[in-house]
């Protein structure tokens, strides 16, 4: 029977990665010197499962490596080994090695052999023995003997042998498979019927097995009952006994075929890549909710069918029907919205998936930087879309690195500043409107505004006499190529990164800003949309085109009053909105649309905010507010600056979704663009998109 083991690999990888996360987490939380037994057990169990699975599924390298780690854990578990910080650190490194190995088996690529061997050496040194192999099974293969004439077997089960579920008859069958069998039962120990306990074994057997049979095969039949019987196996003719060549014999030790499989396994591991089908685990409650809602949808459908089905010529009758129909439609709308919401929830995962990477990072970095850091995480259950989650991991890691490297001071500096020697890094997540907010705060030194400003002046980012608000200075750290770290460190590099962090977050439709008080610490606030698939939008009309403005970026809508308008150099317009001046962006200009009406007075202006900057967008009409499903413009057409995507409206037409931050950027770069130079492809492309989207 040949079974394709590959079909189980996906499950194995999933559970192993999960197991490694558990190990890592427990190791990080381990109270060295006073470790909780259950924690050690949990860690051991994870390693043990990974070892068992990797051996079974042919990932020999992982099995061998994990075996060494497991041995160490086993000693910790049964108390023969002290749990030291050193051991914990080596085990953490082992977790990394195992994770790397799994990734190589999963996605292909090269094993980092040197590192793997180095960590294994560290483990072995700690264990105090030299390279133990996976198989510590007795290697008495030399004892394998065959007797060409067969064997005499004397089998005398102990009274209690049946109680372990072992059945002598099965053993006879197994022996009969090996060769010709002759069995003589010895019933001499059988008690009188009244004394007979059917649960006891009273019989014994003399068995003669004829044929060229390996003794090991016979021993294997009795393997399980070794200690529950008296067994004697002697060759029928002693003289024919010979030592078998160990390499020729079939050995039942399963670790041997596994080892020979290794070379072929490596080939298949490199060949496989990319073909991963992403899967997601969904709580049963979410699935139940959808099933429930679909049930309601069916009821609504029945109701509509009934209401629409039997119209008659009676006008009054029809009116009540109409009422029913409208009621049904309202219900359908509600159902649709609810189903949409719960389907979206399927993709929602708790932010703990991202947060869980942080403890390890803090542990490693703080020991590297010789800093003491406590990590506090809050709101780990806050959910967000899986795709957003996948993309926020790296920026988060970068911010944590930055906080530990540049934010939190060394214990000496902290004490000198009158703080406790241990710094605190706090991660917090919560929902706010249609967004998730992630706050990363530290109680470190904060941003040295003077130094940032000097640096910015030196780089020509800020004019020599230009005065900036505190927020504007803080914001400079997101500027490409600006870092004030006194020494280059391999932890967070040199200013390469914060701009990338902001770029990545922006590309998710989010924003990041920093608040800092010198000497007290800094708070980075990331705001992200909960999902990238649906957007609450305000439909607006500009000329003949309909655009969608994301509701989150709208502050207010006003009618333009001429006394508040002021032009600069006759081109760019500013609008005085209460006490501040905001630039006026004309979508028709930015997108190079024909518009003969250049008068701004009395037209409508939507005041928006993107990335901390306010602007007013001139529109001709405000239409409905509705949720729109975002279709990628990049996939269906190409990237267009100032446009984040498209959607299809209820009447089947395509509307473009405005990228407010992008529009402000275009405005800043170009001022008011000359209408003769196209900024974006000429219109008429809408129909292309509609075709593709359809």
């Amino acid at each position: 029977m040949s079974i394709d083991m590959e079909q189980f690999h996906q499950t194995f990888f999933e559970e192993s990665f999960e197991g490694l996360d558990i190990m890592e987490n427990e190791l990080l939380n381990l109270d060295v010197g006073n470790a909780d037994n259950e924690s050690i057990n949990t860690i051991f169990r994870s390693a043990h499962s990974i070892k068992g699975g990797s051996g079974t599924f042919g990932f020999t390298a992982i099995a061998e490596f994990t075996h060494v780690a497991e041995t160490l854990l086993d000693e910790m578990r049964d108390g023969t080994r002290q749990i030291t910080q050193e051991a914990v650190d080596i085990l953490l490194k082992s977790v990394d090695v195992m994770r790397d190995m799994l990734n190589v088996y999963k996605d292909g690529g090269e094993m980092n052999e040197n590192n793997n061997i180095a960590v294994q050496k560290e483990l072995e040194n700690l264990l105090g023995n030299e390279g133990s192999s996976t198989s510590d099974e007795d290697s008495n293969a030399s004892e394998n003997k065959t007797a060409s004439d067969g064997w005499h077997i004397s089998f005398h089960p102990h009274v209690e042998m049946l109680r372990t579920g072992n059945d002598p008859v099965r053993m006879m069958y197994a022996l009969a498979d090996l060769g010709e069998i002759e069995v003589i039962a010895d019933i001499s120990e059988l008690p009188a019927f009244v004394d007979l306990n059917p649960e006891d074994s009273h019989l014994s057997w003399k068995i003669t097995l004829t044929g060229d049979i390996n003794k090991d095969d016979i021993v294997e039949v009795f393997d399980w009952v070794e200690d529950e019987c008296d067994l004697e196996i002697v060759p029928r003719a002693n003289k024919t006994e010979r030592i078998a060549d160990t390499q020729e014999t079939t050995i039942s030790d399963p670790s041997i075929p596994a080892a020979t499989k290794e070379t072929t396994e490596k080939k298949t591991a490199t060949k496989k890549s990319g073909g991963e089908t992403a899967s997601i685990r969904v709580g049963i409650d979410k699935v139940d909710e959808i099933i429930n809602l679909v049930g309601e949808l069916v009821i609504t459908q029945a109701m509509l069918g009934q209401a629409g089905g039997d119209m008659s010529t009676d006008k009054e009758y029809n009116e009540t029907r109409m009422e029913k129909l409208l009621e049904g439609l309202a219900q359908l709308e509600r159902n649709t919205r609810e189903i949409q919401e719960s389907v979206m929830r399927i993709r929602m995962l708790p932010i703990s998936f991202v947060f869980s990477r942080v403890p390890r990072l803090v542990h490693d970095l703080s020991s590297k930087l010789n800093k003491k850091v406590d990590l506090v995480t809050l709101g780990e259950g806050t959910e967000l879309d899986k795709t957003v989650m996948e993309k926020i991991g790296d920026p988060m890691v970068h911010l944590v690195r930055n906080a530990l490297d540049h934010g939190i001071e060394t214990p000496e500096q902290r004490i000198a500043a009158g703080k406790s020697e241990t710094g605190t890094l706090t991660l917090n997540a919560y929902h706010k409107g249609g967004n998730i907010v992630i706050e990363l705060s530290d109680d470190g030194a904060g941003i040295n505004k003077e130094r940032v400003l000097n640096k910015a002046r030196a780089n020509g980012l800020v004019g020599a006499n230009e005065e900036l608000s505190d927020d504007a200075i803080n914001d400079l750290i997101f500027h490409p190529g600006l870092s004030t770290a006194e020494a280059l460190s391999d932890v967070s590099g040199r200013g390469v990164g914060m701009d990338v962090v902001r770029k990545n977050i922006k590309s998710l439709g989010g924003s990041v800003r920093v608040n800092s008080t010198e000497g007290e610490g800094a708070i980075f606030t990331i705001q992200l949309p909960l999902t990238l698939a649906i957007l609450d939008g305000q439909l607006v009309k500009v000329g003949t085109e309909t655009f969608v403005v994301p509701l989150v970026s709208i502050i207010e809508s006003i009618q333009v009053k001429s006394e508040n308008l002021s032009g600069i150099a006759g081109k760019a317009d500013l609008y005085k909105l209460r006490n501040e001046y905001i630039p006026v962006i004309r979508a028709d200009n930015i997108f190079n649309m024909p518009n003969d009406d250049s008068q701004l007075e009395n037209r409508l202006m939507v005041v928006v905010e993107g990335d901390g900057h306010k602007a007013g967008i001139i529109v001709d009409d405000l239409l409905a507010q509705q949720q729109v499903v975002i279709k990628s413009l990049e996939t269906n057409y190409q990237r267009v600056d100032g446009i984040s995507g498209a959607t299809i409206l209820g009447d089947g037409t395509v509307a473009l979704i405005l990228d407010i931050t992008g529009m402000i950027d275009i405005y800043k770069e170009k001022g008011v663009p000359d209408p003769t130079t196209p900024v974006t492809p000429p219109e008429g492309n809408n129909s292309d998109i509609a075709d593709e989207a359809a």
Partner: protein
Amino acid sequence: MASILAVDDSASMRQMVTFTLKGAGYDVTEAKDGIEALQIAKSNSYNLVITDVNMPNMDGITLTKELRALPAYKFTPILTLTTESSADKKMAGKQAGATGWIVKPFNPDQLLATVKKVLG
């Protein structure tokens, strides 16, 4: 056809064991730890129990002891899944009343051969 209760906390091992045994025509029920297995075993009857040793909540050794204490499972074959490194685990299993063991890692053929050994 004989019915088998397969107990393992690892989903991939359960998948593999179930797939192999079902393919050979056995009726297989899965449990993810000793507690679940014991519950299932009490309300059904099985011709064979195959259990992992290291599991959360209730390990395979305790499960074996608990099963043996039930009249319906007094003589039912129970096989433990152990790793080659733990010779003492084999013995612990036997002392708890297990019929025998299957050494990890094993392949589907080895599993079937062992099951055949107890079920025929």
